[in-house]
């Protein structure tokens, strides 16, 4: 599903160019549930941004679901993100002025799905993550765990090939964290969905199929 070959990335906005990724080779099979670990500065956020087509890389190659992702125009990148990828963020990133249902439906808006249809689908996905009753609440009225469930439903609604999660439990207490991980596990199992989770929590990583450890822009361990 995901194949990276010698991917390198440097930032040039400092006085001396800073090489963040020094040649990453990795492969994630379809349906795999993988975690990426590493201390801050190890390049894991940059890697996730490249995987999420939110950022470009300098050299090497990145294939996503058989498609080479390189030097895309902004519009194409937006379409690929919309079709291939679902995002879950540490700080949820829900739009505060939209209800849970409208937040979940947003990716379908950019697929030009009609309003009544996408609201109905959104309701199904809210049901799937277990918060259907909260559909008409604004994010501010939801608990952290509920917000993350909304975000997960939003990541799933466009039927992506890969879900990318950036510290999805970082803002949650341990009980809620476990619930979210269980939800990921369940989705991974039921939908055969490829999942990549960036985390620094060992308990979270331990529950995934495989752990990729990064250090100083290189893969340290692939277990």
């Amino acid at each position, binding site marked *: 599903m995901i194949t990276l070959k010698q991917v390198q990335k440097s930032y040039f906005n400092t006085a001396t160019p800073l090489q963040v990724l020094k040649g990453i080779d990795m492969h994630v099979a379809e349906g795999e549930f993988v975690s990426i670990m590493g201390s801050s500065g190890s390049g894991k956020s940059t890697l996730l*941004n490249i995987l*999420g087509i*939110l*950022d470009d890389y300098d050299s090497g190659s990145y294939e996503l679901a058989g498609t080479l992702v390189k030097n895309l125009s*902004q*519009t194409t990148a*937006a*379409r690929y*993100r*919309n*079709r291939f990828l679902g*995002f879950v*963020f*540490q*700080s949820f*990133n*829900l*739009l505060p*002025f*939209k209800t849970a249902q409208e937040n979940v439906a*947003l*990716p379908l*808006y*950019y*697929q030009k799905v009609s*309003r009544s249809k996408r609201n109905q689908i959104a309701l199904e996905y809210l049901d799937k993550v277990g918060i259907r009753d909260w559909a008409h609440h604004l994010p501010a009225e939801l608990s952290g765990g509920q917000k993350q469930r909304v975000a997960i439903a*939003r990541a799933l609604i*466009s039927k992506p090939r890969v879900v990318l999660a950036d510290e999805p439990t970082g803002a949650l207490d341990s009980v809620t964290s476990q619930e979210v991980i269980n939800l990921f596990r369940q989705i991974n199992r039921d939908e055969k969905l490829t999942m990549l989770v960036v985390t620094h929590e060992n308990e979270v990583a331990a529950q995934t199929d495989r752990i990729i450890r990064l250090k100083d822009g290189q893969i340290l361990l692939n277990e």
Partner: protein
Amino acid sequence: MIDLLQEIGYGIRKNKLRTFLTAFSVGWGIFILIILLGAGSGLLNGIIYQFRDGAINSIWIRPQRTSLAYGGMQPGRQLRFTNEDYDYVKNNVKGVEHVTARFYLWGEFTIRYKQNYSAFDVRSCHPDHRYLEKTLITKGRFLNDKDQLEKRKVAVIGTKVEEILFKGVEPLDKYITINNIQYKVVGVFDDEGGEQEVRQLYIPISTAQMAYNGGNRIHHLMYTVGDASPKENDAILNEVKKNIAERHRFDPNDPRALSIWNNIEDFKRITGVFDAIGIFLWVVGLGTIVAGIVGVSNIMLISVKERTREIGIRKALGATPSSIVSLILLESIIITAGAGYLGLLSGIGLVELIQWGLAQAGEQPEFFRNPQVNISTALYALLILVFSGTLAGFFPARRAAQIVPIEALKEE
């Protein structure tokens, strides 16, 4: 489309006060523009009203001295118009509507009715004269063709003359004496041109020529051209000039031989000044609107800045740059167009109210009449609104489209 409008609705509702203030500045700009244009049209109508005394489409020609040698004759020859000149214009020139000559009786004449007497100007003219001076008959009639033909001793007197000589006595069919010659009063006239105009008497030009040794001489020839265009007017004037030059044997290109007062030219010049004033008013009004646009643009930039995270989220979820641009652009257009439309309506409303107020007051000031805003002006204003909305939204929208999702989504 409804979806997009709904998305915009969120943005506007989230910042009610800010949106209101911005919208107000644009609405105010349009309001000022409309008021300025209304005032401009009021002033222009006032000036047109100033011309009401004489026919706007009239040409007045007076013979002068020649300044060029022609046909063996020295320059400096005094020209004299005769009845022939009048007859020619009257009968042969196409496009001429009314024509009259004047024979001047120099100096003031003592006019007497019984024991009342005073000095007034006497003008002798043809019956058509009333159209050139826009003479208003209040009693009896004006001079007619029969008076002219039979050289009758009849007079039409101004209201001031009536007031001074007759002091309330019915003047029609009474006899007055002008320098010891008796004339019958056949009419009384009023004139909007002011008091000087009604301190006068009109007598037939044929009578005047006979009674005051004029022979067939005339001093002044004037005619109107109906609703001829300025170009047609020039053609008619050229034909008349050419004919007069032939008859009196002077160079048709002599610039001094004829003194021509072209009311049309005058009118054109003054309306030209008003065209310039109109342009000035547009510039001022547009300047006000530009200030509004800059305001909207600023607000939208701040709005984009504040919504950086939201736009980042949208982009991560698959929003294309163009969908972001249309979101920001349309918001700007809706704010400017909506507010501008309200400004437009209230501006037109105020102009109409002023017009209504002036009409109610009855007595309108002479320099300011019937202010109005026409449809095409309103349409231009609307066009400007949409254009300015687009302009105001353009830079903020471009900035929004350039937002990088990772930057926007960075943890705070």
